[in-house]
């Protein structure tokens, strides 16, 4: 009756009428207050009767167990399945207008999901580790742990070493400057479908993640040998991170940067042991459209295009004129061999 206050004065048990909503707040004031600030409560306020989780959807009703209990719905290893009852259900996703879609499936296949479900690691994060538990907020809420600028700190709670390295990078600098343009962990690794970084497919997949912001660089990379070979699935070829580094990417002007002119022999030398000062004059981002950056390539490409245009224009005309004449010749010689008189 602490939960169903409306039953306090009931005389007849079992109570014939369905009781009202339970009053969890009468004991659990603090979690309920936080819940009220979260995305689920907000959805219920804006869309009453809509599909948004309340206390019982996650915790159960009469069978509520402590989250430390290994058969509880909110046990660390079980929580993704509990969240997935809604976030992995097509109908709920549709009715609730959940833009990100089936995140439960994405998470299940991710390295974190596998660590929980397959390896049973309680140190691996579940949904709540990143999103919080009761006051789950939208990613565009600055108070949310998954708000863009807060992501490095959130991931860094476990991945502290990576975070330390990331904090020195140009990306972290841009995030700190408040411009909101610097990449954070999830921009490259994705939020839910995070994959192990030491598998070949990841090496190739991450290229396009870099390319979502660095569109000029990805264009010139794809036009070069490294980018072509990796597009065909070749793994033993330089991708973005092999030259620029991954977490601690520095500006080229920084003398500690791997792509600072003074460090190129070492960087290229990882794959090309014979690399010397001359070798590193090769530009992996040469741009045939950019006369300032790639003068020799610019003029070479122009010259080759001119050559192609000249050859195909000449032989295009040559062929188009020759074809009807050749057709007439064939008919003539056929007529001759048939013994008929020819027209000319």
């Amino acid at each position, binding site marked *: 009756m602490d939960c169903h206050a409306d039953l306090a004065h009931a005389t007849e048990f079992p109570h014939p009428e369905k009781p009202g909503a339970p009053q969890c707040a009468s004991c659990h004031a603090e979690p309920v207050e936080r819940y009220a600030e979260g995305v689920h409560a907000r959805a219920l306020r804006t869309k009453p009767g809509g599909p948004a989780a309340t206390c019982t959807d996650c915790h159960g009703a009469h069978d509520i167990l402590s989250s430390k209990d290994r058969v509880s719905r909110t046990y660390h290893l079980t929580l993704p399945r509990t969240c997935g009852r809604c976030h992995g259900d097509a109908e709920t996703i549709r009715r609730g207008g959940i833009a990100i879609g089936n995140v439960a499936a994405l998470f299940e296949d991710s390295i974190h999901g596998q660590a929980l479900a397959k390896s049973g690691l309680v140190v691996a994060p579940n949904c709540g580790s990143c999103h919080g538990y009761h006051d789950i907020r939208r990613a565009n809420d600055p108070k949310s742990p998954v708000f863009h600028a807060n992501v490095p700190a959130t991931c860094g709670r476990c991945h502290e070493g990576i975070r330390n390295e990331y904090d020195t990078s140009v990306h972290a600098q841009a995030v700190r400057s408040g411009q909101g343009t610097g990449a954070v962990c999830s921009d490259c690794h994705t939020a839910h479908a995070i994959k192990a970084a030491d598998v070949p497919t990841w090496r190739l997949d991450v290229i396009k993640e870099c390319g979502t912001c660095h569109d000029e660089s990805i264009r010139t990379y794809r036009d070069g*040998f490294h*980018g072509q070979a990796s597009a*065909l699935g070749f793994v033993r070829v330089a991708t973005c991170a092999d030259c620029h580094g991954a977490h601690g990417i520095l500006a080229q002007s920084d003398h500690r940067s791997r792509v600072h002119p003074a460090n190129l022999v070492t960087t290229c030398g990882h794959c090309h042991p014979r690399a010397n000062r001359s070798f*590193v004059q*090769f530009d992996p981002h040469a741009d*045939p459209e950019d006369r300032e950056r*790639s003068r020799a*390539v610019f003029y070479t490409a122009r010259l080759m295009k001119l050559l192609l245009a000249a050859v195909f224009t000449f032989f295009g005309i040559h*062929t188009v004129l020759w074809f009807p*004449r050749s057709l007439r010749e064939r008919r003539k010689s056929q007529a001759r061999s048939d013994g008929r008189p020819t027209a000319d």
Partner: protein
Amino acid sequence: MEDPRPTEGQEVHLLRFDRYDRLLHGLLMASFLGLSLTGLPLLFAEERWALRMARLLGGYGVTGLLHRFFASLLIACFLFHLARLLHKVYVRKQRGILWGPDSLVPQPRDVVQMLQHFRWFVGLAPRPRFDRFSYWEKFDYWAVFWGMAIIGGSGLLLWFPGLFARLLPGWVLNVAFVVHGEEALLAVVFIFTVHFFNCHLRPEKFPMDTVMFTGRVTLDELRHERPAEYERIERSGRIHALRVLPAPARLRRAGYLLGAIAVALGLLMVMLTLYALLSA
């Protein structure tokens, strides 16, 4: 000796290409097709068909290995051809291959014949009296000759970048990369459209001219297509020396088969190339 001039019901066959010419052209064909098949996927790496083609050939690693294999074959052909040329000029003293009617070297009369050929196309002049090599055949030859030097040279640079960077500044590799791709595009589209049309697919030759495979041309064909050469042969009395038996049926069939495979693969590659260029 029987009369070599054509008699009723009997065709006279003359040798136009000797066995080394045919062998080199065959190896050139094989290596060129191989290089195109293994190179185009890289040139158009972002196309969906490129990935499929590379996988079909055994993945990127095998594709690259085959490309280098065919490249070595083509370089060997090129060197053998150069050696033959030197042998002809210096040992057998055939200076005629350097200038004159039997030479592939472009000469003023090629320009005149080209202009007349254009006039003949539109009915303003009689057909030029071609000799052993017409201007478009010379263009084919020199396009391949220059192409092999350019593609082969830039290809070697890209094959051994560390070695060549010791001799040349690294940006030359950027230039080599652009040249290799563009020249390859030129070669692939030219050979599989213009060369195919000029030598095989144009109505007078359709579906193909087997002379490059059998080495033989009939006296009738020669008189019609290359009257200047015919007259030279007639005058010089070399006709006996050039006369050969007709090509065995087996050789003709092999020629048709090789030609059909080359045309099919070539046209497929041209279509894929044009698709990639037009959809870009």
